[in-house]
């Protein structure tokens, strides 16, 4: 016969600093810098555009391709619980993410979530979905010197003499619009917002 103490469920994988430290480096929670991790169609487009850039002598530095959906889930809900926007018992479970948000009381649950917010350096509410998560976006820095003689998707050479000599940096420097036009022929699109993310290109600009 079970004693009352034995009936108390022991909560495992509680949210908190320890959970983040134990999991954030695992492949299921890691972002990628590999083009091979992108969605198949966008991947082919990126490879073709990248080859054209390299053939033209441009320098390329990739910082992010596909971002982990699991990582986004943990960061999103950690922020919401920590900020009191949702109670821990209302966080939906996600297949592949073994985490217990509800510590049994609100104070402990918020503390656990806040520990993840702090450990993950979250400064603003993360999104659950994006082109990066779908494998349809890339953050890369493209620079060159002199004129850039680059072939578009149709094989026509485009000579870019205009400034600036980069594909986008920071938030106000959206990069060379002639290069953006070339990228678009490959299905790699740069956003046209006033406030942009300089290195960000995607399937639709978002």
């Amino acid at each position, binding site marked *: 016969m079970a004693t009352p103490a034995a009936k108390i469920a022991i909560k495992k994988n509680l949210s908190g600093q320890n959970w983040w430290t134990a999991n954030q480096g695992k492949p299921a929670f890691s*972002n990628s810098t590999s083009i091979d991790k992108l969605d198949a169609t966008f991947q082919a487009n990126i490879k073709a555009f990248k080859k054209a850039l390299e053939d033209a002598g441009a320098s390329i530095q990739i*910082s*992010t391709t596909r*971002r982990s959906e699991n*990582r*986004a889930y943990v*960061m999103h809900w950690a922020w919401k619980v920590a900020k009191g926007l949702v109670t821990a018992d209302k966080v939906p479970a996600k297949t592949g993410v073994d985490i217990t948000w509800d510590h049994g009381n609100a104070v402990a649950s918020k503390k656990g979530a806040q520990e993840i917010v702090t450990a993950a*350096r*979250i*400064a*603003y*509410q*993360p*999104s659950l*979905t*994006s082109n*990066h*998560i779908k494998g349809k976006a890339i*953050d890369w*820095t493209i620079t060159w010197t002199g004129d850039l003689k680059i072939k578009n998707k149709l094989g026509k050479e485009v000579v870019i003499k205009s*400034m*600036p*000599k*980069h594909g986008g*940096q*920071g*938030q*106000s*420097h959206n990069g060379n619009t002639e290069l953006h036009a070339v990228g678009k022929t490959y299905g790699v699109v740069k*956003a046209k*917002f*006033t*406030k*942009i*993310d*300089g*290195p*960000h290109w995607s399937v639709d600009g*978002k």
Partner: protein
Amino acid sequence: MKSRLGFVSFLFIAIVAGGYFFAPTFFANAGAKLPVIGWLDSNCFAVTKKGLSNGTELFVVTLDGPQAVASATITGPANEKSCGPLADDRREHNASQGLSFYEIKSSTAFATAIGIVAKVANAKVKNEHVLADIDGDGKPEQFSMCATSEGLSFDVWPSEPFKQKPIWSGYYYLGYDVERTCP
């Protein structure tokens, strides 16, 4: 004479091009006396000014919620352990903007803010927005923060946000996705 004109032209182009390439912030009202401005993520102050000394005081406009005024003090250079913008997933882009990073202390807890290296005595809060004359032109500036798709845009405006060009802008690359709120 011709070579001198050529040199002057070269200098002008170099300055303009240099600013276009490398300036992470920009100033629309070049005539006004803008103080040094940067942005904050908790205890980390990111600013283009190098060599700010320990004890330097900041006027702070907090932006993670209803805006409020606070103060902070620089306590030293920041490192990747203490400074969110220097975390692995975002250090490269933030550092490449030519920013310097400082640790600060403040009696007010905040997540995101704009920091100004100046004493601003005439600030007030109206409808949850801070109004403060930071450039001494007699007119109060206003402040905003909005999300791009993977970063935050910090702006100082000569009047109502997004009605004119900002007089200062800063960008924080977060390294993760957020819902866009910037227009």
